[in-house]
């Protein structure tokens, strides 16, 4: 037995070594020391900087440049706290738990302000926001999205929050095979004749791709429902836009959804969609980028427009918009700012936020760094910039994850975006004709139905993607099993709870 014990120790040692060798969590790069720690009055605003988790060498220089403006104007200096996007929620909640100072926290991207408020990570900033004229005039109605129990906790970072969907297709192939795609259709179904034409034209590409079926619902349902602040997972029930009674339903149980998945399978059988994308794990735009699809349906927002997708897929694209653009709370909060509970001076934090929206040079520094070093202007354009020759986001010294500091309409834009992008921004506002969803500003508190929600999430994860990628031969059987599984997971209870809360919210409106 002694031998076995010795072996046990040896194993333990191996385990230790393996643990050391294994790549542990990426350590956040330490930021360079702040430039001017003066006597007492200037307040240091700690600002979260979301990035890909890589080292950003020039942080100190940017901080210094920003301080040169912010110190005289607001008596604040800034200090970046870099966070890898994957750790976003975990880092913020750990900082709050450890009482570590954070002033401006990014409350969008992989987190949402509702959850952060529930976790006690954010503090109310209602009065401070009301006293900030630029923020008030830019965000106006959108501020409701960051309001919880009557108090503002988060401010939208983008004043152009609408989202719609479009069929993006290869303009070069359309010309070559003389395929005419309209500029707008009301429903994805209206594209069926185009798909048939693509198939008949004899080109090597499929008409479209359903990708790996992940996160499809919103786009394949023509943007025709209100997800009630839950943009990517329709687990809490939704309101169909053609329903004016604000009745929450299980979207997967609706006739519209049923018909749509049958249609997708039909397209799959007819050879309109890339049949291999599901098992190969290609997303819809992967299929386009690797030349297997002629077009794909994309969600379109101010930041993810045709120019963006052209850059991302590397193909010349044209656009056919589908349905109407809507403004959801989730969309407005996609990039948003809150003040952490561990901020010592929330007033100073909001003052800096106001400066970021009103002073374009601060916003440009935060977004893109220093002209000549991190970017250069593009000749013949008004606001377009590019990386200096031989540089890119990963080696220019200041490549960040988001370029949404300040008012997007006034800041530079990075290629492949162009001046047209700036002009298009107004179309993504309420004033520009996008529809505010009835539930805008409502958020669902799921505490009472946590257990049910986990089961529903798991069911949706299991059944949805194969159905929406068209790979299931027995659509009817799989669909019925899906609906039944949702019922078994007690989605009715979640919807009832959601409806009660929504009605209470509507009553106060």
């Amino acid at each position, binding site marked *: *037995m002694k*031998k*076995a014990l010795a*072996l*046990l*120790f040896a*194993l*333990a*040692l191996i385990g*230790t070594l393996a*643990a050391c060798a294994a790549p542990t969590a990426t350590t956040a790069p330490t930021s360079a020391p702040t430039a001017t720690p003066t006597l007492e009055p200037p307040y240091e605003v700690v600002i979260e900087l979301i990035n890909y988790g890589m080292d950003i060498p020039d942080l100190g220089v940017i901080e210094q440049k920003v301080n040169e403006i912010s110190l005289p104007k607001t008596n604040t200096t800034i200090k970046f706290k870099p966070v890898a996007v994957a750790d976003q*929620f975990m880092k*913020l*909640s*750990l900082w*709050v*738990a450890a009482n570590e100072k954070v002033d401006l926290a990014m409350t969008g991207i992989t987190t949402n302000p509702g*959850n952060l408020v*529930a*976790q*006690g*990570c954010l503090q109310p900033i209602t009065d401070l926001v009301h006293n900030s004229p630029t923020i008030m005039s830019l965000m106006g109605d959108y501020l409701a999205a960051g309001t919880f129990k009557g108090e503002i906790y988060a401010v939208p970072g983008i004043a152009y929050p609408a989202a719609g969907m479009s069929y993006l297709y290869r303009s070069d192939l359309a010309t070559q095979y003389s395929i005419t795609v309209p500029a707008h259709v009301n429903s994805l179904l209206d594209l069926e004749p185009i798909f048939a034409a693509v198939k008949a034209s004899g080109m090597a590409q499929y008409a479209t791709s359903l990708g790996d*079926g992940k996160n499809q619902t919103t786009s394949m349902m023509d943007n025709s429902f209100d997800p009630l602040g839950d943009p990517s*997972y329709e*687990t809490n029930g939704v309101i169909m836009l053609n329903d004016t009674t604000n009745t929450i339903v299980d979207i997967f149980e609706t006739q519209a959804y049923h018909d749509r998945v049958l249609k997708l399978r039909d397209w799959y059988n007819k050879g309109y969609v890339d049949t*291999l994308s*599901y*098992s*190969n*794990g290609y997303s819809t735009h992967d299929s386009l980028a690797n030349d297997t699809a002629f077009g794909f349906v994309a969600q379109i927002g101010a930041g993810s427009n045709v120019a963006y997708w052209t850059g991302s897929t590397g193909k010349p694209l044209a656009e056919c918009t589908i349905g109407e653009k809507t403004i959801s709370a989730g969309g407005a909060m996609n990039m948003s700012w809150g003040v952490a*509970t561990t901020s010592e001076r929330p007033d100073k934090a909001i003052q800096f936020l106001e400066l970021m929206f009103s002073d374009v040079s601060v916003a440009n520094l935060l977004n893109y760094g220093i002209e000549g070093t991190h970017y250069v202007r593009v000749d013949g354009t008004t606001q377009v910039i590019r990386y200096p020759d031989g540089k890119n986001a990963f080696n220019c010294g200041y490549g960040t994850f988001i370029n949404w500091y300040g008012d997007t309409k006034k800041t530079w834009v990075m290629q492949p975006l162009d001046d047209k992008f700036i002009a298009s921004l107004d179309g993504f506002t309420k004033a520009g004709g996008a529809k505010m969803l009835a539930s805008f500003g409502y958020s669902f508190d*799921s505490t009472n139905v*946590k*257990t*049910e*929600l*986990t*089961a529903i*999430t*798991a069911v949706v*994860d*299991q*059944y*949805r*993607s*194969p159905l929406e990628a068209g*790979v*299931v031969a027995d659509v009817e059987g799989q669909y019925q099993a899906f609906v039944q*599984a949702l019922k*078994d*997971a007690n989605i009715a209870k979640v919807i009832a709870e959601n409806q009660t809360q929504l009605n209470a919210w509507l009553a106060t409106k």
Partner: protein
Amino acid sequence: MDRSRSIRRAWKWVPLYALAVPGLAYFFINNYLPMEGLVIAFKSYTAKAGIWGSPWIGLKNFEFLFVSKEAWTITRNTLGYNLAFILVNTVLGIALAIFLNEIRKKSLRKVYQTMILLPYLMSMVVVGYLVTAFLGENTGIVNGILRSLGGQNIQWYTTKAYWPFILLVVNTWRMVGFDTIIYLASIVGFGDQYYEAAEIDGATKLQQIRHITLPLLKPSIVMLLTMSMGRIFRSDFGLFFQVPRSNGLLYDVTQTIDTYVYRALLVKGDIGMSSAASFYQSFVCLAMILLFNWMMRRYSRENALF
């Protein structure tokens, strides 16, 4: 007189125990100190209130593991796959160790040994892509062979029936090297005299294996089995998540407790509920170790680990 001798004898062991200090310190810091966090499983945790400040909510965090219809599927898959893995890895591991030991040419033995161990060091993401290279529908090697023999493509990634075997093969290919090395280390340590004596008595190779190697290996086998029992309610997340490509059609045979917890809690990021799941797994594993060891003690006292 007697006492001083025993002190002196104990003193002799001090340097040896000192050697264990870094390892023990590691275990204390890494494995025992964080146990304070176990209370999160019984609390409604919020970041602001912290671990001790958050309110107690009893067993509410555990509910989600049991109310779902999936509870049976994930329990069956987790335990079933683990039992199959333990069985196959033990049998194959011993067999490979014996084979390797019979190779006389030292350099060749090292080559084989390394080749068997190599997959163990590979990331599961890479393994996932290797499997796709074999099983991809149009581009995979296996379907390529089938087509060249005049057969049809098989849709590996959408057919449930194949996956228990695929997962078993992948797991064995990846993990067997580790067990093999441990068994081989034991076998090498046995020394030649038993085998020489047996040879003089006219024992065949098979008889030597059966009557010398296997009985001598028993302590190692029992120890590795006990340790496997300690992991029986945990699954290799990478294997069950990356290799089947997180494909919903296959969940009936690929969903284990770890992947279920990941998928169900991904959206909400509820720390209390994920702690509860982990607590439950640890509890079952501890129970299994104790049970297995108790059975071993009944069956052969001297081989039980503790």
